[in-house]
């Protein structure tokens, strides 16, 4: 993985020193609450319901064993011994003291971790396809570009105070696993007919109160222009993005009001000034950074046949192993290797939550089975990217004993879920207990496997941290004035990927206790209606939302529709 040179290290060390001084001035009353807020946010610190939360960046989802151990260490010493992997591919510690955070950041800096720009109105930590560099369907490894963007955007002086947060996501594969169309800027790298690397630039995607799918404003940007072009987008946004109302200040609102064509004109006009400027990327710099993402020393394997046959036999003996192979093991560019998902969606455990002891155990497994590297996914799981085919059975045994082998990746119970009302100050509802209730309702893994691939996303409020708008099933905590109960809205038919679509709301909100049963009704209908080979989302596209409305709300829905 990318190794810091002295410049990188000096940069994060200086950042720790700077924040230590800022914290000192804040605690001494020299910095007001209002002045300190953006400073702490740009260092990843929120002040939440119970205590400050630190969001540690995992740039483009690549994490080393030593880094995970360092996180385990600070979680144990300074926090309550656990962390939460979020949909931003990063990890959050929830119970820190402000006065300790400079020390925590200093510990993390020793292993090249930081929390710079994981929050605040600036360019945020960049997310990527979690199978980048190993996916069989990949044309261009986006990680070197993501690292170049990380460096460029870190403490960029002109874009230090944007109207609002600004998120990049990158992919270089034929299918999009990074939800690039629901980010402020999504970058899709590909090779053109001549073999040149080009970038398709999507702009103006985002979820929240105004869910929007990003539009293409550049179809074949030469890679050397990446920084020049991104600077042009950001300058246009920095100058003209709305600042009078934070609900309207994301770039998506600007793109909506100007239209894609006008946005493109503005960006192109701005870009024209800097096209061959000094920030134009060079072969040398790309080559230098790419070296940090060179493949690990894989063992050459002539054929997979023998290993596959053995896995088959093991699978017949151990149906759980067969299920896990089927769900949690993914294709790999390199013959003889596979990527493995460690499911953090376990019965009785909040989605994405991991204890410090588990982190240590996972770090050790990564060293034994995968060159000491891990990936975090925006669906809140971890991945061992380079596991030998012949090691899969042993690895499964170990993961199973750690409760990290739930064979549900991509299935209903692979729930994406924000921390919600248990921790988050903005929440309308406690999404985690609901997620646990859904897990219980669907505890039968065979039934879940039969239901097939389903993205189910639960957000505790309209900020949509769990991307419920693009879940096949999206569940949103809503506020009902004067009600003691918690209420949720169900939406169906969202989809991520290059053809991202937003989910449609089925009907009035339901009380939290009603949700698991309502989901069961929705899925019963799917099972009744599906044709062979159809996934939930396919059936939904074919039959539409009305049958689901009627199933959930009875004939009243039909009557309402008739007279609507």
């Amino acid at each position: 993985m990318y190794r810091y040179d002295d410049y990188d290290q000096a940069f994060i060390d200086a950042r720790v020193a700077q924040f230590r001084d800022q914290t000192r001035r804040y605690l001494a009353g020299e910095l007001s609450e209002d002045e300190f807020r953006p400073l702490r946010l740009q260092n990843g610190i929120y002040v939440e319901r119970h205590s400050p939360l630190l969001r540690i960046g995992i740039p483009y989802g690549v994490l080393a064993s030593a880094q995970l151990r360092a996180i385990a260490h600070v979680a144990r010493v300074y926090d309550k011994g656990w962390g939460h992997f979020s949909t931003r591919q990063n990890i959050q510690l929830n119970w820190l003291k402000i006065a300790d955070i400079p020390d925590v950041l200093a510990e993390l800096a020793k292993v090249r971790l930081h929390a710079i720009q994981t929050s605040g109105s600036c360019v945020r930590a960049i997310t990527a396809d979690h199978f980048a560099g190993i996916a069989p369907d990949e044309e261009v490894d986006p990680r070197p570009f993501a690292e170049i963007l990380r460096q460029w955007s870190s403490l960029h002086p002109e874009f230090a105070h944007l109207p609002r947060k600004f998120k990049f996501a990158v992919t270089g594969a034929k299918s999009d696993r990074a939800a690039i169309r629901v980010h402020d800027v999504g970058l899709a790298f590909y090779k053109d007919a001549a073999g040149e690397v080009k970038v398709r630039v999507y702009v103006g995607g985002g979820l929240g109160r105004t869910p929007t799918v990003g539009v293409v404003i550049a179809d074949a940007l030469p890679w050397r222009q990446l920084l020049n072009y991104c600077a042009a987008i950001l300058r246009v946004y920095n100058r003209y993005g709305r600042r009078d109302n934070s609900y309207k200040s994301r770039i998506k609102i600007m793109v909506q009001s100007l239209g894609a064509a006008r946005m493109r004109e503005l960006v192109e006009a701005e870009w024209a000034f800097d096209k061959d400027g000094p920030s134009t990327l060079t072969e040398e710099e790309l080559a230098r950074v790419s070296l940090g993402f060179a493949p690990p020393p894989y063992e050459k394997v002539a054929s997979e046949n023998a290993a596959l046959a053995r896995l088959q036999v093991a699978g017949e003996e151990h149906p759980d192993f067969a299920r896990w192979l089927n769900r949690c093991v993914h294709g790999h560019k390199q013959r003889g290797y596979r990527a493995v998902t460690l499911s953090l969606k376990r019965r009785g455990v909040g989605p994405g939550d991991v204890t410090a002891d588990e982190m240590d155990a996972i770090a050790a497994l990564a060293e034994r089975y995968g060159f000491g590297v891990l990936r975090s996914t925006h669906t809140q799981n971890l991945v061992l990217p380079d596991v030998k085919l012949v090691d899969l059975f042993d690895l499964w045994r170990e993961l199973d004993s750690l409760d990290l082998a739930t064979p549900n990746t991509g299935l209903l119970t692979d729930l994406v879920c924000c921390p919600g009302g248990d921790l988050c100050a903005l929440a309308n509802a406690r999404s985690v207990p609901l997620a646990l209730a859904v897990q219980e309702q669907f505890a039968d893994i065979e039934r879940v496997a039969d239901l097939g691939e389903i993205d189910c996303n639960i957000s505790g409020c309209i900020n949509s941290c769990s991307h419920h708008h693009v879940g096949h099933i999206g569940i949103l905590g809503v506020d009902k004035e004067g009600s003691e109960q918690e209420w949720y809205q169900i939406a169906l038919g969202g989809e991520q990927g290059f053809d991202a679509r937003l989910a449609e709301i089925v009907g009035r909100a339901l009380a939290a206790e009603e949700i698991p049963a309502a989901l069961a009704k929705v899925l019963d209908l799917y099972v009744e209606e599906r044709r062979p080979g159809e996934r939930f989302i396919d059936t939904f596209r074919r039959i539409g939302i009305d049958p689901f409305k009627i199933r959930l709300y009875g004939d009243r829905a039909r009557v309402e529709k008739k007279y609507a």
Partner: protein
Amino acid sequence: MPEVIRPDGRIEEADWTLVRYPASNDPKPKATGKAGLARNTGEAAAPPELVAALPVPPSGRVIVPLALWQARREELQRRFDAGEVGVWLDACEEVETLVAAVDLAAVPLLALDFPKAGDGRAYSSAALLRRRYGYRGPLWAVGDVLRDYFVFMFRCGFDTLLPRPGRYTHAQLAEAASQLGLFKQPYQGAVDDPRPLFRRVQRAPLHA
């Protein structure tokens, strides 16, 4: 006398007087949404009556709002020619308007306002003035000029920073000045040095 800070960390007394609109000109928060106190780019900084009525000190060096310079140019031209009138731009006003209204070669000083610390438009305005329009004269940052952002301001082309009077003691400013060099080699190019790190230094090759 308010103090200003310079890129090399020198602290000097401000020898210009900033002519500001009265505070009551701040836009009112809206009833809905999380309203911020900000005008959007392209909106007028102040109504014409206010511009007409704003008192300008009769002598000495003054920095007047762009709208005032546009509306009352005749009254100020003689002092301008004597090098005593600078012009400041509100964050909601466009650099292009400034460039059209003011002779960049003749104006003795320009200033850009940070109406609140989180409003980063003046960074882009400064960068444009320096790089696109080639302005080489003094460029001041005024308004919510906070020490934690001094480096950003200098990197974007400001050469003089004027924090709000009373915001910092001399000792605090001196401490801030001593921290200006904390980040020795920023990653990206900016106005102060347009070369990104990868063109500025030879970075060691990396190994997997």
